[in-house]
């Protein structure tokens, strides 16, 4: 039976599954069904395993709900209570609709993250193939260190994508299409709906109030588009529109925005009026008087459109800024719009100061703030001029020797005539040639060709993979020392067995392959040495531990 600590969210009696009567339980993390009279659950599925749910169409006699799992299996529940079958099913469906997305995201997110990591990093992918697929270590160990931040609420830093802002034209993008017979179709995507909600919180409020109690979604949006709120000429005729309130709220919001003004002391919006010099300089008629009674209808509708336009832009910008604000900021924002002079004064001076400073100071004209350096003061600079020749290795020659040598040479060269036909004897020449031929005295160093020219490239690639895999295992092994906790003890023992398994399954076949191909070079010597060091360290640790215990 389920542990009683699980919270049961919904119980539905008289639900049949596979022609058996029973009860359906929806709990915090799973959905379960038990037959009538029995204590156990025969069917139990975690929400994270469920891929989607399906319901039978409304017209059918049988009221059914089907759960499709990720594995492809499906389970069908038949709601058999005569009176409340439909209601039960709807309730179950609603609950599932709310719960499933939460769990779905978690499971998928992990898998997605793993897949993404494997795809982005080919070295990691190769390591995964070498170690996990060939069962040298298990998949959990492999992912143990790498998925550290995944289960936290915040996403890993490199998956932080930028928030997408709201397109200013989102309302215009809903282009109505004619339906053929005097109707208009508006295509609303979830993106557009989200934009509308973010920009106009008033609409969102109306939506949450009315849907799904009073109106369906479809009706709500139909009304939205029909309302004059949406259309340009927003002349409030006082209809029973649910959106007329929104219009009033918008007016209020616009007024408060205007009152707030701009915080930058260097920007004076009020001076941006349409000041004209006189008649003829851009206007046809005389300056209108300040009273509003002379405004024509056209002017007032133009003013209304401009007002709406400004309001829309302001809301779009505010929506972009709003989501980064902490609720405290919103509270302070509202307090300043109340006209509470004390609070608004708090915010004015720092902002003003910053703006003024920005305008006054130029960064590159400031004095440079160089770090303090130590002055160079060389006492014995001739040391640098001396080459890497040891001081005392020169043979000592007396001055007499030198003089003798020079005189000797002079004598010799006094009657020097080049005798180019007898420069050297043939024996000398042939011995020189022998020394220079391959295998000769002077050619010894060249026999060692670079190893990467002697070993075929696929062997090289395999060796690289072996090194990467061995490196990974050895890293885990060596990070266990010093062994302080019992967790580390277990890990050390496990890693040692992993290393042995690696050697057996990967390294030895590779060695045999090399031998078969007659490659004389010892390519695996270093790897074996590393593994041997690890084994001996483990052995030492083990003997010490046993001595401590006894």
């Amino acid at each position: 039976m389920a542990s009683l600590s699980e919270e049961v969210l919904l119980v539905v009696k008289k639900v049949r599954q596979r022609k058996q009567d029973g009860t359906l339980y929806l709990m915090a993390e799973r959905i379960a069904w038990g037959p009538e009279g029995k204590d156990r659950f025969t069917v139990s599925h975690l929400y994270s395993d469920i891929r989607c749910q399906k319901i039978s169409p409304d017209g059918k006699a049988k009221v059914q709900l089907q759960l499709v799992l990720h594995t492809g299996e499906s389970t069908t529940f038949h709601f058999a209570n005569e009176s409340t079958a439909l209601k039960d099913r709807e309730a179950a469906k609603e609950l599932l609709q709310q719960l499933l997305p939460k769990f779905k995201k978690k499971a998928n997110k992990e898998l997605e993250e793993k897949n993404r990591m494997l795809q982005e990093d080919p070295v990691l992918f190769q390591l995964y193939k070498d170690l996990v697929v060939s069962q040298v270590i298990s998949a959990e160990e492999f992912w143990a260190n790498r998925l550290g931040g995944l289960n936290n609420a915040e996403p890993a830093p490199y998956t932080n994508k930028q928030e997408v802002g709201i397109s200013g034209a989102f309302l215009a993008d809903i282009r109505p299409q004619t339906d053929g017979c005097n109707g208009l179709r508006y295509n609303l995507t979830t993106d557009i709906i989200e934009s509308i909600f973010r920009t106009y919180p008033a609409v969102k409020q109306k939506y949450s109030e009315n849907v799904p109690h009073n109106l369906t979604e479809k009706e709500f949006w139909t009304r939205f588009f029909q309302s004059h709120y949406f259309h340009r000429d927003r002349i409030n005729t006082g209809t029973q529109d649910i959106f007329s309130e929104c219009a009033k709220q918008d007016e209020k919001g616009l007024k408060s925005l205007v009152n707030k003004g701009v915080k930058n002391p260097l920007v004076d919006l009020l001076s941006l009026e349409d000041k004209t010099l006189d008649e003829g300089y851009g206007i046809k008629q005389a300056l209108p008087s300040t009273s509003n009674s002379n405004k024509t209808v056209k002017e007032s509708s133009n003013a209304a459109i401009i007002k709406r336009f400004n309001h829309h832009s302001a809301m779009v910008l505010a929506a972009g800024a709003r989501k980064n604000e902490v609720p405290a900021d919103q509270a302070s924002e509202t307090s300043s719009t109340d006209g509470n002079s004390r609070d608004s004064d708090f915010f004015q001076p720092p902002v003003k100061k910053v703006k003024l400073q920005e305008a006054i100071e130029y960064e590159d004209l400031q004095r440079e703030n160089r770090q303090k350096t130590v002055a160079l003061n060389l006492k014995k600079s001739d040391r640098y001029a001396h080459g890497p020749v040891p001081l005392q290795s020169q043979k000592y020659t007396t001055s007499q020797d030198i003089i003798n040598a020079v005189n000797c040479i002079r004598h010799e060269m006094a009657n020097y005539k080049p005798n180019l036909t007898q420069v050297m004897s043939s024996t000398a020449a042939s011995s020189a040639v022998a020394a220079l031929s391959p295998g000769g005295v002077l050619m010894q160093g060249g026999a060692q060709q670079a190893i990467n020219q002697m070993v075929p490239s696929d062997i090289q690639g395999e060796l690289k993979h072996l090194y990467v895999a061995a490196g990974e295992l050895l890293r885990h092994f060596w990070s266990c020392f010093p062994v302080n906790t019992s967790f580390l003890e277990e890990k050390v023992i496990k890693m040692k067995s992993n290393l042995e398994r690696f050697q057996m399954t990967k390294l030895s076949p590779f060695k045999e392959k090399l031998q078969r191909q007659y490659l004389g070079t010892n390519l695996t010597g270093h790897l074996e040495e590393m593994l041997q060091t690890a084994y001996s360290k483990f052995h030492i640790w083990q003997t010490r531990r046993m001595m401590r215990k006894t």
Partner: protein
Amino acid sequence: MSCYGFHIFFTKFTLSKCLDAVMVMGNSHLALTRTNKLAVIASHCQDSHFLYPSKSLGGGDGAADDVSSTRDGKYELLAVANSTIAAEIRNVLSKAEVRGNSTDTLLAGSLAKALCCILTNSHLVCLEQVIKAAEDCALQYMNFMNVIFAAQKQNILIDACVLDSDSGLLQQACDITGGLYLKIPQKLALAQYLLWVFLPDSEQRSQLVLPPPAHVDYRAACFCHRNLIEIGYVCSVCLSIFCNFSPICTTCETAFKIQLPQMVKPKKKKLKMPA
């Protein structure tokens, strides 16, 4: 088109044999391609001197007489080169003062002269051939390294043929510029070595099997003892190298804090921060 600069450094040996070999090499080089050019520089303790082409080559009559007197149909250029070299070396030796105090030769200077000669004469890749019988001189180190790097920038290869003892500086020169370094076991067969190894130019060398490059010792020498060391201490202010730690750098007199850890790790070059 390539141009050879020969350097011959000598203190003691059978100079005439050496010169003969050099001349053979020079002649072969000139004979390979019509556009090849040759310059020979001799370097001794006071001076480095162009043996060929010589400044006194201007005179026509003397040279013409020499040429016509050979009477063996030799290519004129070769004949002139040989006689000039011979005459000049006699000249140099007779004029050289005898000073009994140094056995150093002006290697860097002659290399520099050769470089200038190459750069003024030809535009393309060139080779320099150094035949060395003397010891490395420590005092010319800076100049020498400057010349090497200049040659490297100009894509001039420096080859070295060493007769007596290995020269670390020349090994470095050959490694840096991409030339060949060879220490010859038999001096008598110098001509053979020269012709076999050093005559082909750089493109042809890639097709031939030549002696492999020697392992170059790039170790630095510590400033205190001039021992070649692999691991040492470097002052972070003046970059002078020491083999032992000392709390004050003797070159720039900066004081350092000593932070002796529990386990001294010897296998690291430590850069200490000044106090």
